[in-house]
């Protein structure tokens, strides 16, 4: 009798044991999950970070996380709110001659491993970064680094490089102890000088835990512990903070900011970050060659409506490439206001008139039709592209939007068969205008996607490079800004915003506009 039921038995037993295995597996791994945080000491902050934590190696692309968000490491050079440089781990620096810089270091800084930070460690860090991070290497242009004494360092560059101190504000150049690596030269864990020290990194859930550095040179540290979880989906971040699963996060969906702010116990603050939404125009294509068409397009776009309804005020209508709060920005520029009459005038003057009454302008029988590409990695872009297309259509310009993968966009750019490209560019990778203006507006600049070329701009920028006096230098750059504002080879649409979402119990947070996304400051603490 029993034998007959035997296959059934196997099946049931397998299923049951499976279910048991699974559930027991669950309970045994319990504890690394955020819901359990209640049992942690009260002064622990759970941070919902906006990118997945891919690796924790500070010098090779993850500096932003380790330095700015986890506050494990610190840079030689700091920056204040208006992006002017101020001392970090270095107390002062000066340019000895065209290619030589001298840096003086703080003498009271210790690494998390207990050793003192000296010029030798700085040299070690910078050389390591230069060898492993070609991006930084190409910005630093370092020829050699010389340790003068324990707290003095001489850096020789290959060519004149006025932005060198600015580059040393870049998080990937943050100073690490040699004990970050083992004897074989393999990366172990980030050992820095910051207010928090590395405690653990869970490779499976990609959660980074840092604890208070009792011996921080800067004084008291607000939190005992910080648990940083990568939550790349904005919507999930919103749900997480709403459900109380994280204490601090950024960039919930822009549309949700006001609603979440209104919730009890949660507040949302909107800031501008050094990044702009910019529309590249392909100047090699017929209608866009004409400066009048470009200006007309700029007049056709309603920047404030976009900032309000697409970005939900996480961001702001923009005039030039730089935030008005930046010390070097040309503050006399104002955003183009939507002015369809003016757009009409300019387009008509350029010969684009709607002759067949289909709502689309044409010239010599050809309609004014443009393609418009963008990508989806930044949530503001696709809806912004759609809204802009609708606004341009009102001015009689037919625009077809395409949301594409980065690879296909690069491909199209290379082949030249594109008209408009909307992207969000960082404008203060390095806190100095030279980097951006050179890349964007000089003939053959690395990010000069439109193919813009103006000898006046080129010469202004070359002149400015040689000027060490900041005021004089910035003046030249202001002139550049004014020219490109007039010629609109790229339409700067809006400043990129950042929404900081935190529980009311999180106190002492200060937003740092120079940070690449946001920066955790040592003073931050939790109130019971």
């Amino acid at each position, binding site marked *: 009798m029993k034998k007959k039921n035997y296959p059934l038995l196997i099946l049931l037993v397998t299923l049951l044991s499976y279910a048991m295995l699974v559930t027991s597996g669950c309970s045994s791994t319990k504890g690394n999950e955020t819901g359990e945080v209640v049992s942690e000491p009260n002064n622990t902050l759970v941070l919902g970070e906006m990118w997945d934590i891919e690796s924790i190696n500070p010098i090779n692309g993850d500096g932003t996380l380790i330095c700015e968000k986890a506050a494990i490491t610190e840079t030689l050079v700091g920056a204040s709110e208006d992006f002017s440089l101020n001392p970090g781990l270095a107390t002062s620096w000066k340019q000895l001659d065209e290619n030589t810089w001298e840096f003086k270091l703080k003498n009271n800084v210790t690494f998390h491993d207990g050793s003192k930070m000296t010029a030798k460690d700085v040299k070690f860090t910078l050389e390591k970064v230069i060898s492993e991070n070609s991006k930084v290497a190409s910005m630093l242009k370092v020829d050699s680094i010389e340790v003068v004494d324990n707290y003095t360092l001489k850096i020789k560059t290959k060519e004149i490089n006025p932005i060198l101190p600015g580059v040393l504000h870049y998080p990937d150049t943050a100073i690490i102890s040699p004990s970050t690596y083992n004897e074989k030269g393999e990366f172990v864990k980030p050992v820095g000088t910051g207010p928090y020290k590395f405690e653990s990194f869970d490779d499976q859930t990609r959660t980074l835990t840092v604890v208070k550095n009792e011996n921080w040179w800067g004084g008291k540290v607000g939190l005992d512990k910080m648990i940083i979880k990568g939550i790349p989906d*904005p*919507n999930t971040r919103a749900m997480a903070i*709403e459900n109380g699963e994280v204490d601090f996060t950024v960039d919930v*969906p822009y*549309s*949700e900011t006001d*609603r979440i702010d209104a919730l009890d116990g949660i507040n949302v603050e909107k800031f501008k970050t050094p990044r702009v939404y910019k529309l590249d125009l392909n100047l090699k294509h017929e209608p866009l060659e004409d400066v009048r068409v470009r200006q007309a397009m700029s007049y056709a776009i309603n920047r404030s*409506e976009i900032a309000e*309804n*697409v970005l939900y005020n996480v961001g702001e209508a923009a005039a030039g490439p730089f935030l008005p709060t930046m010390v070097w920005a040309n503050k006399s520029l104002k955003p183009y206001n939507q002015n369809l009459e003016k757009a009409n005038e300019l387009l008509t003057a350029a010969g684009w008139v709607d002759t067949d009454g289909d709502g689309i302008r044409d010239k010599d029988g050809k309609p004014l039709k443009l393609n418009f590409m963008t990508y*989806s990695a930044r*949530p503001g872009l*696709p*809806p912004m*592209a*759609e*809204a802009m297309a*609708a606004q341009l259509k009102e001015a009689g310009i037919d625009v077809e*939007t*395409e*949301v*594409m*993968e980065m*690879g*296909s966009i690069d491909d199209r750019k290379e082949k030249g068969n594109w008209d408009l490209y909307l992207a969000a560019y960082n404008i203060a990778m390095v806190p100095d205008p030279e980097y951006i203006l050179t890349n964007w507006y000089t003939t053959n600049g690395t990010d000069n996607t439109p193919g813009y070329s103006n000898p006046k701009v080129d010469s202004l920028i070359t002149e400015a490079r040689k000027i060490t006096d900041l005021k004089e230098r910035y003046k030249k750059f202001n002139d550049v800004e004014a020219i490109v504002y007039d010629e609109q080879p790229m339409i700067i649409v809006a400043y990129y915003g950042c929404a900081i979402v935190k529980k009311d119990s999180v106190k002492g947070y200060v937003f740092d506009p120079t940070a690449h996304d946001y920066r955790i400051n040592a003073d931050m603490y939790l109130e019971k």
Partner: protein
Amino acid sequence: MEANLQKSLSKKRYAFCFDSTFAFFRDRPFCPLISPYDPNAIDLGNKNLSPSGEHLLGTDYLGRDLLSRILIGARTSLSIAFGVVLISLLIGTALGCAAGYYGGIVDESASRVIDIFLSFPGIIFALAIMGVLGSGVFNLIFALSIVQWAKYARVMRGQVLSLKKQEFVLSAVTSGADDFHIILKHIVPNAIAPLLVLATIDFGHVILSIATLSFLGIGLPADVPEWGAMLSAGKEFMRTAPYQTIFPGLAITSFVVIFSILGDGMRDILDPNHEEGEIY
């Protein structure tokens, strides 16, 4: 009596499904009746509205009428699904025919390829392909066809294997017809019925796959009115405007249901020996 009634009822069910699909397809004369809006007209002042008399299903994050977009989304989904099913049907028929008809090494190698394509979850592979090619209608059709055709090839091969032993095929052989003539005139017309049934049911699956890929952000870009992409864009507003999540999902579900029923009906018509009640 009762059986008759049931039969006519089920006929009506299929007819209804067919009509409604068709109605979705001819959006131009049909849509304006229900919704007077341009599915792409952006109205930022009226974004994220709840359903009302004016916008029956509300509006989306750019103030576009959701109903109009869902209706036009049907056309996107259906055209892509049609492309995918057609291409897989063509490839599957061709390869299945070749394998079944020629046998030997052709069959051996074709069958291996078919087995391989059937032996892993297709969506995974489509995902990988889409990730490489980037989103877009043609890429999507390509990626899904690659993972869909094998099913058809297998069914076709089976059909051909049994057909080629049938005497009317043999007598075509002895009367000197070439392979091409035999396959085209005798084999395919007689073998195609179960494939058409499969294709109809597949329509629903393909629509699901399209939506899934778009939802993951690698199928169709958010600006294309497609259900998965709409759902993906709408999930951001899940708490404030759940309609943007719920309605596109309902649209997908109902289409898949419709095609299952249609496929079932086709089976009843084309393959009367099949047992009923598989779908519902």
